């Protein structure tokens, strides 16, 4: 099973091979979880999202078609879940205003970090986390997919459902903004 490509493993799973899910979990649970964590800033929530992603993989296994990479499909599911989670938070009044466009989704207040979150973060990480949180949702997402998942621009475009040039712009802006914020942070609190 380990020698098979992602699509082949998925096909095996469609045929009813239970071990295929084990292989998929082995390959993608951490990438999806890390992505979800960087979007939700909460380990517990990220775990929920990751679980939900794989449940949906199981639910929609029969509708999966070999159109593009499996990882793209997987991160699309993760993206949709993160967006709907954020929207739900806005709807229940946790955020000052509800926005339909993910571009406009901005976390004004960060969710309470879990004890594990606090324990595991060093100061630099805290800095980066703080600055990333302040990025607009889509910029953040594009940056996370590029920096931590090493996805190609066209894959990111597919996941975010945006044109390629938009993705280039998002990444450029995200980096520029992040650089500026980090600089400001350093000036205020000193280099870590």
């Amino acid at each position, binding site marked *: 099973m380990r020698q098979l490509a992602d699509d082949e493993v998925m096909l095996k799973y469609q045929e009813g091979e239970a071990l295929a*899910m*084990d292989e998929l*979990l082995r390959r993608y*649970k*951490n990438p999806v*979880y*890390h992505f979800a*964590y*960087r979007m939700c800033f909460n*380990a517990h929530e*990220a*775990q929920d999202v*990751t*679980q939900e992603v*794989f*449940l949906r993989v*199981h*639910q929609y296994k029969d509708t999966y078609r070999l159109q593009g990479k499996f990882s793209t499909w997987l991160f699309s599911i993760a993206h949709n879940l993160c967006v*709907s989670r954020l929207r*739900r938070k806005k709807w229940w009044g946790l955020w000052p205003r509800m926005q339909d466009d993910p571009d406009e989704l901005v976390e004004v207040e960060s969710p309470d970090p879990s004890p*594990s*979150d606090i324990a*595991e*973060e*060093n100061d*630099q*990480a805290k800095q*980066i*986390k703080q600055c*990333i949180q302040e990025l607009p949702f889509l910029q953040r997402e594009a*940056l996370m997919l*590029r*920096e*931590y998942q090493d996805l*190609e*621009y066209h894959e990111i475009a597919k996941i975010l459902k945006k044109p390629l040039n938009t993705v*280039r712009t998002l*990444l*450029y802006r995200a*980096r520029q903004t*992040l*650089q500026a914020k*980090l600089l400001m942070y350093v000036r205020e609190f000193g280099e870590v």
Partner: protein
Amino acid sequence: MNRCRCIKELSSYLDSQLSGKRKIQIEEHLKRCALCSQELEKLKALSEKLKSWQAPALDVSFDSSVKNKIVALELEKERVKMNKKTLSILIPAGAIAGILIVSLLSLNVYMKRGVQGRFNDEVKEQYNAETEYGQLAYTPRPDGRVAVEQDKKLVNVRYIRAGKEMQVAEKSRAVGWQESSSFEESDAVGAYRSAGKRSGLAKTDSFLRSSSEQMPPASVSNMMLADKISPLAEDSRVIVIQPTLPATGIGDMIIRTAELTLEVENGKETYRKIADICREFGGYQAESSFSKNDQGREAGRVTLRIPKDKFLAALDKLSELGKVKANNTHSQDVSQDYANLKAELDAAMVVYNKMLEALQKRQTSIPEAMRLESELTPVLKKIEHLKNQIEKLNNLASFTTVTVNFYEAEVSAKVLEETTKLVKENILAAKINAVRYFATHLPLVGLVAGFTLIAFVFVILLSILISRLKKRG
């Protein structure tokens, strides 16, 4: 500070997302542009910094919890599928069962009505009964009577209505239309016994005892029934006799009475026909009564006096007016009484004549004449009394008394028609009232309907919203 136009492309260059040609151009530019080179270094440093932010580790039980949830999902799917399957079987099965139950109940009601309406007392085909006197065969006749044959040979046969006489009699009593058993026993023993009783023919107990002592039942019944046996045209093996009046061997002063109970289709029509039959046979109506209950069922009772020689014919004709539910005949031989009365009268007349002769012959004084005359008065009175009694017996014996009770069937065509008409009228009246009500209260009805519709739409929208929220959750 001036910004180079190529700065925007540095991000793509860093991510190796530029085309080959553009990449070379940028690389050439970087050699010349310090600003862009600096910017590129910053981007690389930023990328390095980002990598320092690591996510905490995933729970070790993550894999098993995902698999458990997948299993739970599958079980839920199966459960929903099973429920749908069960419903798809249960609903049609339930519908079919409901239809069957309703049909059976309706059939049961119909059958009950049928039984209540008809008592089902007619023998439809030949059946046999084993008795201590041999096997009896009962064969139905077209006119509804049943012929009885014993051991396939001519026997004392009886006119009976049905094989289940006692049951019918019980039912008849329950209805209240007659008070005594209306049918004779169906076996030969009963036939002999009844014949014996009839040969004695007395209403009073004394007469019954005396007549039964005088007449051996079997011989008398043979003699009696032999006069009445007549072969069937359609079946010479079976002999049927009509219900006979008991006869006596002593004179012909017999008081005959009959009581007939009929179930009819139309009470009024039957009443009229009874009167016609009475006139036809030269009789007269002694009493009559007629009634109609709340459901429209008619019933009546008529007492006729029919000349004794036309009694049987009249009884036959009356039986044809409806379904005979009961047929009682009774005879009382008053010959002895009559003879006694006659003898008494003769004796009284002799005394009277002698006293009168004596009065005429003797030339007595007036007081003596008056004394003799006063002695004659009681004799005269006795003579008158005896004459009256003899006249009464003569009258009773000359005309038979026939009482006809008739009633309409519980479910007759006429009653059904009237009930249907009544129901239709009530339904029409109810419809008219409903229309009137709505017409007068139209605004209120419209308001209520409008509110109901709004509430319904609101509930539907709310349920859609809740289901959508649940899905997201």
